[in-house]
């Protein structure tokens, strides 16, 4: 498809409104946050305009470094698990009869309607000792008595994968359903089993879509701050949790802002790096 380039200022008019909204409700607040990150904190919950680097200097410590490292690892793990489950799932979904497809998609969209709080409490109940799924194992006699699965790293991971999975499927759905079915059928007639055809052909053909989905889920998971608190121990708290803690409970907005800016810069550079690697490999 070929699009004409906009020639006059009037041609840009249709994007003027979204651009203005983005500037006012995203650009300006982000600018304020960047500014605050250089301000000086005043005891008692306020700050005054200044230009100090102390806020950034403060988290160049082992503690914040390891929290940042944990946050990135957790987000990457969530992204990889979501795509690892989501790609075969979406592939099978697109080959189901239409009625089944709609049923699954409605179910997945319903998850998006749930708030993070509800997801967190639901999973902490499901993984608890008193009412959790281990009771089922105890009831059928597989184990002697029920035990608690939460709080733990596994619980955090489960909750976050659950929350990000619908996004994964929705993002993958369009490229997967555009996949030419004769590619897999050709592979079948050439002697490839269905599983082999999936790994040899479907995955490589969808490479760019899969990479884009990993990045999207990664960024999405990086911002999660409720689930790690509801389902994890303090050592499972992400940088987002610490930012919330500083901003709301410690009333240290300049430090919270500095951490937020740093997180944004780190994730932007990681996304940029991944895109760059993908492009180099494609050529």
């Amino acid at each position: 498809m070929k699009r004409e380039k906009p020639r006059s200022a009037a041609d840009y008019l249709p994007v003027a409104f979204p651009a203005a909204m983005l500037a006012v409700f995203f650009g300006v607040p982000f600018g304020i946050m960047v500014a605050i990150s250089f301000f000086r904190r005043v005891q008692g919950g306020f700050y005054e305009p200044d230009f100090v680097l102390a806020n950034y200097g403060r988290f160049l410590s082992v503690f914040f470094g390891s929290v940042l490292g944990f946050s990135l690892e957790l987000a990457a793990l969530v992204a990889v698990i979501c795509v690892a489950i989501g790609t075969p799932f979406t592939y099978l979904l697109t080959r189901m009869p239409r009625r089944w497809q709609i049923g699954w998609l409605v179910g997945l969209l319903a998850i998006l309607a749930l708030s993070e709080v509800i997801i967190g409490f639901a999973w902490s109940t499901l993984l608890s000792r008193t009412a959790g799924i281990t009771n089922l194992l105890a009831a059928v006699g597989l184990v002697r008595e029920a035990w608690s699965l939460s709080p733990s790293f596994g619980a955090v991971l489960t909750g976050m994968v659950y929350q990000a999975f619908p996004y994964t499927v929705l993002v993958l759905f369009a490229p997967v359903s555009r996949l030419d079915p004769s590619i897999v059928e050709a592979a079948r007639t050439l002697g490839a089993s269905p599983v082999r055809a999936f790994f040899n052909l479907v995955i490589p053909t969808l490479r760019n879509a899969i990479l884009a989905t990993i990045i999207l889920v990664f960024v999405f998971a990086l911002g999660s701050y409720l689930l790690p608190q509801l389902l994890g121990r303090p050592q499972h708290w992400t940088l987002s949790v610490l930012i919330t803690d500083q901003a709301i409970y410690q009333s240290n907005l300049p430090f919270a802002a500095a951490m937020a800016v740093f997180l944004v810069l780190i994730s932007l550079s990681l996304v940029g790096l991944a895109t760059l690697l993908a492009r180099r490999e494609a050529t």
Partner: protein
Amino acid sequence: MQPEVPVLTGLTLEALTKRFGPVTAVDRVDLNVAHGTLVCLLGPSGCGKTTLLRMIAGLEEPTSGRILLDGTDITSLPAHRRDFGMVFQSLGLFPHLDVGENIAYPLRIRGQSRAAQNERVRQLLELVHLPGYADRPISKLSGGQRQRVAIARALALSPRLFLLDEPLSALDAKLREAMQVELTQLQRRLGITTIVVTHDQREAMTMADLVVIMGNGKVRQIGPPVEIYRRPADAFVASFIGTTNLIPARADGAQGAAVPGGRIPGLLLSQTSATLSVRPEDIALTDPESAPIRGEVTFVRDLGATIEVFINCEGTEIIAVEPPRERREIRPGARVGIAITPERCVVLPP
């Protein structure tokens, strides 16, 4: 003399049926394809020919019936164990692999050595007239070249059966005709049993040893192309293969048959009424005064090599093809006479 024992060689389909919910796509098809023949499954779109081919390939599971290859039942053998080569309508080339890797894919997954793969790819590219193309990406090829790559890939394993689903439909008319000839020559040279699905009767006439005409999921007629052209089994087949005139006729009790605009002397019908299928080239234009059938010319299509004359005989349109050498003065509105010899009429049920 030895008694004739039915030996099952080649491909045999027994009452093969496929239903999609309430729709019967393929309805009890019986077919026997001897080794080395090229069979065309011909029919209008939606007649079940592609479904039939997909069942043979193992990509669609038959609702009932059996598929046998050299007497062995392969009905439930999965597609990837059948060792058939198939060319798809949309080709199904792997976009992330280059030409050589596409062709070598079936060899690679069977663990053949790199050297053996390269040698086979070289042979196959030579076979399809694309030598030296192994390192090209698929995206840089023209439609005809992609076609050849798909054919080479399907032949990489020397398959027991070579299946093609509307293989040439994406090509322009000229290239398509050239590829039909090339594909037929290739098939003759390799002697490989081949089944081609097509809706183009010209393609079937060009390529096939045996044509299977399908309509509404059923086989309507099986035979060599010329036999089907000369002796169509019913009006559907007659009108599908080539152009034909379908003329209603009645026995007139005087050693002939009455047709619109006159009669055909000497044509004896076993029933009182019938439909005659007469090819346009078998209709001769004569002097209107002495002719047994008379009509009025409504349109003349002069194509240079042939001249088609459309004649209205009491409401029935008859098309006659005139040899261009004579190029008689025939204009719309002129009265003409028609002569049809009884031997050239195919009598069909009314």
